[in-house]
Structures are given as C-alpha cells and as structure tokens.
C-alpha cells in the first residue's frame, strides 16, 4: 500500500494532522493500536469549575468523535488495531512496518509520528499484585471500558492525572479512600516530597472543589508559605471528592496474596523522610499509581532521528523544527511525543504539522509553508496560554529551548540531502 502521508497515532494530534493534510489534497492514512480512534481522548473527562456552566464538563470522546467524523468525511483512511513496529527508509520513501491481520507494510512519502506519551508508574513494594493499575488505566477502565476496577481504591502520587483519577473513579461509583505520596527517596524523588507537592498543587487549585484548596493555591506559590502550610498539615483534613488528601503520608507497601488487600501508609516529614508514628493499614482492593507522563519516542529512535534532552518537555524528545520536521527528511512529529501538553494544545500542534506536510508534499517552498502556517502557530500558542491543565510547569521554556536547539544545529529537515 502506498500513501502520501502515514500518521502513526490516532489521538488528537494525529487526527488533527490527518485532517489538515487531507485538506491540502494529499492522501493520508492514520494507524493506531487501539480498537477505536481517539487515543487518550477516549478516557478523559474533565470538570473545570472555573469555566462557565456550559463549558464546565469536557468529554474527550466527544472531541474524538468530531475529529473522526471530519477525517472520514474528507477521505482519510483509518487503520485501527494495528501496531507499527518499525520505520525504515525504502528508496525515496519510508516503509512503515505493521503487525495486524492486514498488510504488513505501508509505503509513504512522509510519516508523522504522533504516538503520544506513556505513563511512568513508580515502583512500590507489592505493585505487581493484581488490582494495582496505573492512574491512566483506571480512567480507561471506567470511562472507556465502563467497568469499575474494584470497589475501594487508593491513589499513589499527587499530580493532575492522579486527581483526575480520583474524580473519574468517584463518578463511576468507586469509593476512593485517599490519595497519598509514593514511597520516599529514590526513585520517586521530588514527586514524593510533601513540600514540593504542595507547590505543584498550586497549578491545580482551580480544579479542586474544596474552597480551602482554591484558597491554598495562590498562597502556596510562595516557598515560605508553602513550608508553613506543609508543616501545619499533619492530619489529612482536606478531602477532594470524598478522598482524604494525605499530603504528609506515603504509601510504603501494597499488601495482598492473590490480589490487593491493603495499602500501608507511613507518616512523613515535610521533606519526605519517614517520620515516627503509627503506620496505618487501609483495606482496599484497587491501587492506582500516578507517576507522570513522558513522550513515547520509540519509533523516532528506531528511525534514527536525533534527540535532545529537555526535562521541561518530559525528557528525551526528538529534535524538531517549527513544522514538526525532524532531522530525517520525511519524518515529522507532533503531539505529546514532542512534549507533554493537554489535548487542545496538541490538537492545534497536529493541525499545524498536517498543514505543513500537505503543502510540502505539494511542492510548496519553505517560505510559503512558513507564511501559510503562521496562523496555526498563533493558535498553538493561544491554546497553550488558555490550557486549564498544565502537566509540565516549564513547557513554554522547553519549547523555546527546542527552537534554539533546532536553529543551533542548522537543521533543515524538509529537503532530502
């Protein structure tokens, strides 16, 4: 099978790119491992109380359906339940290697890698027991599979995805008893230090239903006040959707025989070290581990793209230019694979890349493409500014650093050598 553009990943970035590219008249296929298109949109439901009532509930599946309808109407081909396992140069084209019941390969003039990000669960003693799942898995189970993972849950880790999971499980009728930190020390690092956590929760305060959390948010931006607040917060007085926010406790072990039966909690000092005091054993049947997200860059690595290390974007990311072009002509990247951001931002990013690829494959010059995608670039920045959820606090600095790294290397990425 031969196409102009093969998009790997049918999430918001991939679908938006496919639509934009198809609008330029080139033929496009989108390939995804999942059973239906939408990527992580399918499992996300957000409630943002700071927005007006009609915009308060954001359902990812609705966004996905709308993108899929547009794509299908335009004649974008969607190939689901298919795994891409390799990416090789094949003369002037790229060979996208597939694993499914159908064709084993797609030949494409250009490939857009939009494979998103993956969770990085932190190991906890006992974490291999059935009943321990990632925070994202809990969302997939209740919002996509429509099956509860259990009846009594505990969340380990306190980041945006963790709180979204508390909410998601509660909406699905699962009792979430509490949310606490991962075990202190390595490998959790700062993620498990109450003082640091409190600072990061400031980014989330507008999403918390508790008035106290909302008030605590801006106040905790100041280091000194954060320390004081952390020192005073010993017993978990705050509840978020009914779950105890145990800022000064760490889950040190998950117990059970054939499946989860308890979590063991230890009190912590503000710096994360274990404090003296009674350990609690809480009976639960489900434990959700939230450890953050990192770009899923395997295909870009396998193809031979150059990378750069930018923790502000989530770690090792493919070096890329303003249209998503990589150091390999014909390979582009868009979405969370370039740095972890929320769906509205990555959708605009995908749209820009798709538009650029469409123009380039039609033979337009780089100057024309730059001019034509300027408006899309503005939309990306605006979506970034308006994002209610920021996974990575330094993402703007990260994007700037990537621009510099690309310019410094004098990479072109759009013309073959």
């Amino acid at each position, binding site marked *: *099978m031969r196409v102009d553009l093969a998009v790997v990943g049918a999430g918001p970035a991939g679908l938006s790119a496919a639509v934009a590219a198809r609008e330029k008249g080139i033929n496009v296929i989108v390939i995804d491992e999942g059973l239906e298109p939408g990527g992580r949109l399918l499992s996300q439901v957000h409630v943002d109380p700071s927005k007006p009532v009609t915009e308060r509930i954001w359902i990812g599946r609705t966004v996905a359906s709308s993108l899929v309808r547009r794509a299908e109407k335009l004649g974008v081909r969607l190939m689901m339940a298919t*795994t*891409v*396992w*390799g*990416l*090789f140069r*094949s003369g002037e084209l790229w*060979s996208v*290697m*597939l*694993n499914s019941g*159908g*064709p*084993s*390969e*797609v*030949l494409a003039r250009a490939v857009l890698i939009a494979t998103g990000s*993956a969770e*990085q*669960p*932190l*190991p*906890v*003693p*006992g*974490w*291999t027991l059935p009943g321990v799942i990632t925070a994202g898995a809990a969302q997939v189970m209740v919002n996509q599979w429509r099956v509860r993972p259990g009846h009594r849950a505990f969340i380990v880790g306190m980041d945006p995805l963790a709180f979204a999971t508390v909410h998601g499980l509660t909406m699905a009728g699962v009792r979430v008893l509490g949310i606490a930190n991962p*075990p*202190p*020390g*390595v*490998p*959790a*690092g700062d993620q498990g230090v109450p003082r640091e956590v409190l600072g990061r929760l400031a980014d989330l305060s507008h999403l918390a239903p508790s008035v106290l959390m909302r008030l605590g948010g801006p106040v905790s931006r100041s280091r000194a006040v954060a320390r004081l607040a952390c020192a005073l917060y010993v017993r978990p007085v705050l509840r978020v959707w009914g779950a105890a926010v145990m800022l000064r406790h*760490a889950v*040190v*072990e998950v117990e059970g025989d054939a499946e989860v039966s308890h979590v*063991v909690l*230890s009190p912590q000092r503000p710096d994360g070290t*274990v404090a003296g005091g009674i*350990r609690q054993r809480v009976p639960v049947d489900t434990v959700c581990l939230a*450890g953050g997200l*990192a770009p*899923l*860059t*395997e*295909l870009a*690595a*396998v193809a031979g793209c150059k*990378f750069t*290390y930018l*923790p502000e974007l989530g*770690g*090792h990311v493919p070096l890329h230019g303003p249209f998503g072009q990589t150091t390999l002509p014909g390979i582009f990247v868009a979405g969370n694979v370039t740095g972890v951001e929320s769906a509205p931002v990555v959708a605009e990013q995908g749209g820009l890349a798709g538009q650029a690829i469409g123009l380039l494959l039609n033979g337009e010059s780089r100057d024309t493409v730059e001019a034509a995608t300027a408006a899309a670039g503005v939309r990306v920045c605006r979506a970034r500014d308006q994002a209610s959820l920021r996974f990575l606090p330094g993402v703007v600095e990260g994007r700037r650093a990537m621009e510099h790294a690309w310019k410094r290397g004098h990479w072109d990425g759009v013309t073959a050598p």
Partner: protein
Amino acid sequence: MDSPDLGKGRPDSTVICRCEEITLAEIMEAISRGARTLDAVKRQTRAGMGMCQGRTCHQAIVRLLAAAGRGPEQAGRPSIRPPVRPVLLEALDGGEGASTE
C-alpha cells in the same frame, strides 16, 4: 552506597522490571559493579529486555542511576532496535503489500 529507601521491610526485593522480574537488589548490585547507563544495566540484569522493552521500568532505573551520580542525560536512552513491539515471525517475512527488492 545506601540502598534507596523504597519503604519498610524488604525494599530490596521489590521488583523494578516487571517483565523479567528483576529486583531492586539486582539493579543496585549492577550499579555498584559499574553499570552507569540504561544499556549497561540491561546487559547485566536483563532489566528492560522483556516484552515491554523497558517502557514501564526505564524511568525508575534512570532515577536509580541518577542517585548513583549518572544524570538522565548520561544514563542515556536505551538503544532501541526494531521491532519496537513483539511480532510474529511471519510478519518479518513480508507478505501482502511488502515491497520486493
């Protein structure tokens, strides 16, 4: 070097690589014997060689290497070779749609 405190009791027996069931103790031993990159840890312990190819454990191992003085940049990305997902041998053989040389 102190064993990282993963929790009470027997932190060392905590599995880090779920696929190959490589424990924290085994990884720390490899590090104490000189392993300083993800690839070196992989070669010595098999951590990261299983079905998920390190997707689940590599972040934890990067952190353990960092605690031993090797930052994420030096610890490196694991060297990745295709297939990035396990494939049946038939798929590697070509088949419908494969280009012929």
